[in-house]
């Protein structure tokens, strides 16, 4: 069992009962978000380092050419992975992806894919050849809420990503033909339920103390949702969470796109 989580649980639950959070935030307040776009731009076509409070996550975009899926021969391909690097937490170990990293990657992937944010039709090159976009999310410091930090990093990196130059059947390294075509800015918003309160953007201790978690990724519609944890939500809590995700998503989107 996780001793740290076990000990922190009571502390967090008692705080929330008094209407408080350990870092003094309001229940509907995000930690400070700092974006560093193009963090690895000398090599990666797109990249972004995100700090969400003390959580530090980097997303890098790699773009290659490859075969389309047989059922969508004219669409580009995207793939999202998350690596919980051992540098980020004493609990992380090197090795193949575990269920936590797979869940983070898949929830972020769904938000981007289902919103149609990447214009897949424009990633067609010629018959049986399309652009393949890899989103790699690298967790450097885990202080809670990896889905939101990773999701913000991923879409920011995509927004500054460039499409490599393609000539005579091969990619020309380090040269670009333009921007990666994007049509939207999906933003995930994660909330946790502790006792009967809903808290946005959980810290690591609040994740230890949570009963259940709900992530909602929005553009102008809802694009992805994921409930986690062993607890449950009632209907009102879910509907309130949807409204909250729209409102916070809008604020964060404005910050990412700068308008």
């Amino acid at each position: 069992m996780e001793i740290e989580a076990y000990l922190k649980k009571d502390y967090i639950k008692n705080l929330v009962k008094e209407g408080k959070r350990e870092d003094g935030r309001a229940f509907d307040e995000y930690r400070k978000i700092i974006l560093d776009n193009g963090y690895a731009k000398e090599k990666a076509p797109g990249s972004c380092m995100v700090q969400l409070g003390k959580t530090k996550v980097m997303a890098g975009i790699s773009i290659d050419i490859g075969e389309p899926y047989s059922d969508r021969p004219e669409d580009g391909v995207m793939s999202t992975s998350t690596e919980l690097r051992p540098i980020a937490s004493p609990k992380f170990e090197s090795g193949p992806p575990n269920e936590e990293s797979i869940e983070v990657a898949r929830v972020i992937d769904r938000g981007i894919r289902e919103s149609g944010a990447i214009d897949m039709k424009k990633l067609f090159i010629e018959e049986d050849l399309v652009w393949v976009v890899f989103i790699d999310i690298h967790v450097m410091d885990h202080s809670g809420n990896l889905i939101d930090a990773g999701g913000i990093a991923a879409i920011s990196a995509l927004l500054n990503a460039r499409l490599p130059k393609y000539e005579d059947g091969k990619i020309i390294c380090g040269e670009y033909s333009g921007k990666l075509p994007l049509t939207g800015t999906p933003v995930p918003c994660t909330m946790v339920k502790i006792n009967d309160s809903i808290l946005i953007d959980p810290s690591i201790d609040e994740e230890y103390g949570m009963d259940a978690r709900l992530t909602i990724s929005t553009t102008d519609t809802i694009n992805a949702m994921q409930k986690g944890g062993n607890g449950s939500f009632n209907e009102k809590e879910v509907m309130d969470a949807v409204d909250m995700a729209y409102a916070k998503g809008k604020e964060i989107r404005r910050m990412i796109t700068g308008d």
Partner: protein
Amino acid sequence: MSGGDNDVVLIKGNKRLDGRGFDELRDIKMEVSVLERAEGSAYIEWGKNRVIVGVYGPRELHPKFLQDPTRAMLRCVYNLAPFSVDERKKPGPDRRSVEISKVCAEALSSVVMLERFPNTVIDVYVEVLQADAGTRCAGLTAASLALADAGIPMKDLVAACSAGKVQGQIVVDLMKEEDNFGQCDLPMAIIPRKSEVVLLQMDGKLSRDEFKQAYKMAVDGCMKVYEMQKNTLLGSMNKFVGVEGGVENGD
């Protein structure tokens, strides 16, 4: 979800491809105690889905450092058989099944009285033999029956059902074609007595109001599934004590 192809006709008049109305579930059949060696087991036919679930435990958990002196651990393995889908699926866990296993284990943990069995593990094995969309809902529905069949104390059953959007229409319990060419899939599972959601995933495009409607339809679907679950357990108990005429189950 593939973004909603409009050239595939999924709704004609007020009927879906298989003749169902928008709020109609596929035919569902359930049975418990179908395996000899497992502590508890259940089999479910849900449309073209065929899923069998076996439960082992509570039993000793190894390696020992995983043991929790305050409660049992509940593990779930969701496995698609290679022959269960159109194109052979490579055996073994892929990213999708790892994620489904995780959310199903969390959903079941909300009802099982884990604190009664410290240091142990309860293993739930979900084997999908034929898949036609909605396998996690079918698996979870059968899993809670198998847990009950194993006599493991629970606060309630977990009942699952999906809703979604097909050609602009909110419908319940998507079948394969609707899942492939629809605009949204919303699998859900609830604790029926509290009417609280324990599994909720969604992908596609839904407005706030559409989500509200889909949520209600999924909950209604779950309640229908719950009635069938209770009848199935009652039937098996009646059979066990020798009462004739167990409750007929069906849609």
